[in-house]
């Protein structure tokens, strides 16, 4: 990835969506798009693969459930089998509620931490937003400028129908945007 990129700003999510379609048709390389809220269908437009975080969630959940079930069985029937109200040593029904709660706990925290991990979000992370207002009301499309037949004017012409707010070139070192 080079350090030259083109930053197109829009006012409405629809403009961004349409622009993305066109740009991709043109075969330009889109580094990323920035929006103030989750724009419906943008992921499809950008052609992102469905996230694998669901699997993380599932695995964590199962770990929690099975782990707790085993622990309860160990405590109740193996470690020290105590006669409690004449109940059987290992009464599965009474083990279910806690196991379920643990499952939810593990699943929830697992997937959240996974999210933070893969998206590299952590407290105190220093970032320089592409545009201050991107978390307010602006929609930004970030294009890579380093392939053949790249020409700012054509891009400008191409994006102008989607009432383009601004188009500027930026020279940044990679990673800084992440």
């Amino acid at each position: 990835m080079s350090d030259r990129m083109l930053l197109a700003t829009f006012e409405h999510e629809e403009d961004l969506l349409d622009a993305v379609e066109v740009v991709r048709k043109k075969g330009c390389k889109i580094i990323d798009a920035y929006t103030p809220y989750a724009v419906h269908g943008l992921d499809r437009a950008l052609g992102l693969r469905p996230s694998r975080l669901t699997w993380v969630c599932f695995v964590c959940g199962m770990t929690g459930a099975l782990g707790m079930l085993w622990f309860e069985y160990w405590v109740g029937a193996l470690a020290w089998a105590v006669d409690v109200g004449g109940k059987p040593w290992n009464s599965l029904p009474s083990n279910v509620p806690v196991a379920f709660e643990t499952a939810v706990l593990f699943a929830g925290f697992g997937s959240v931490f996974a999210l933070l991990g893969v998206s590299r979000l952590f407290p105190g992370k220093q970032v320089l937003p592409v545009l201050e207002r991107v978390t307010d009301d602006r929609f930004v499309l970030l294009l890579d400028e380093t392939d053949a037949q790249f020409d700012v004017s054509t891009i400008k012409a191409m994006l102008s129908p989607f009432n383009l707010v601004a188009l500027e070139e930026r020279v940044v070192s990679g990673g800084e945007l992440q």
Partner: protein
Amino acid sequence: MAETEQQQPEPAATEASELLRPTLITGGKTPADVTRDICAPMEGRPTALWWGALSISLTALLAGVVAVTYQIAMGIGTWGLNRTVGWAFDITNFVFWVGIGHAGTLISAVLFLFRQKWRTSVNRSAEAMTLFAVVCAGLFPVIHMGRPWLAFWMAPYPNTRGSLWINFKSPLLWDVFAISTYLLISAVFWYIGLIPDLATIRDRSKPGWRKSLAGIFSLGWVGSARTWHRYETVYMLLAGLATPLVFSVHTIVSMDFATAIIPGWHTTIFPPYFVAGAIFSGLAMVLTLMIIARKVMQLENYITVLHIETMCKLMLSMGCIVGLAYGTEFFIAAFSGNPYEQFVFLNRAAGPFSWAYWTMVSCNVMIPQLLWFRPLRRNIAFVFLISIVVNIGMWFERFVIIVTSLHRDFLPSSWADYTPTIIEITTLIGSFGLFFSCFLLFCRFLPTIAMAEVKGVLKNPRRAAKQDSSKGDAA
């Protein structure tokens, strides 16, 4: 619940889009407006109203702290309990607050799954309410112990007792796990929702403590589409997890009673009955807070009459379910032919605590029936009143279940009365103090409405096409 949105459209609305979906946010707001409006209360100076409210709730909180300190210093004897009635205000308050805590997650998680876009205006504060309510709830099981300093014995930690752990057969222990899980998951859910808004605050506020704090907690959010994509997935997952959690938590709370042997407690109807009740009381409390908040924070355009009305409908339906449950209890008692069971319910309606029982019935079942009338549903003042009444009613529901079942059980020799002491009452007031203090501080320092989500449901001229598709996945 999905049908609640197929309500009769606004008569004023003529535009096609309006026919499809009534306006959620009035006043033709743009995203920029949203940001400005919602950040306004945080950036401006707090109003006198806010200061007044805060000082009242802090006073209440202080009173509660004093009461609890005295009680822990002297002993549980400073409560009105006795050998027969071992639980009263303490567990009543516990169940009451847990109940309150339910609407929050319900509104944000369940309605999210049902694609109820109207939730966006209320979910943030509803979730906050959940958190604070659960904190209040969690307080009571601890202070109701004879030796609260040993509360940690409830946790399964490695010990030197020869592998003597804890009793996983005890519903009270299930509670410990359920409540703590619920608290943690709700907190995470709430925080995840906050991240984008925190980023917004970070970017729009000048350098200073707010900016740096927002910077730290927004975890370096930049609104990248990739992150949004994953974020949406996780948010959906959390919603999916939270929904069964909501139901499980109150189911487990109800098992404290349902698995016991005491007539009036030992009932299989309890789980659904309690969940319905919880949601009922939760909605009532959300309404109370919403109506206050929209006044105090000038958010009339974001929390519209439409929101209020929709919640009223939900509340009405819950009220009816609860009413049904009351009826069923009596029927089952009569039908079971179990004299103890029959006695307990007769005793509720006609015994020494009948006043509490009838307060409960009228507050929870009779008065809410007024919500069938549209004008009343849309009358903010009236709805506010109703929500208060329902809160009172639901508190009494728990009181009735706990006290009337205990005070006259099997052996007439040990029947006893119960009268609360000042300490108990002050503790209850204190818990309200804690709750409202937390909520007011939240209103002051965090966006009470999920900006990022509201922006997503704003009306704008070129949305119609999108809406068809979104309605597509709603169905």
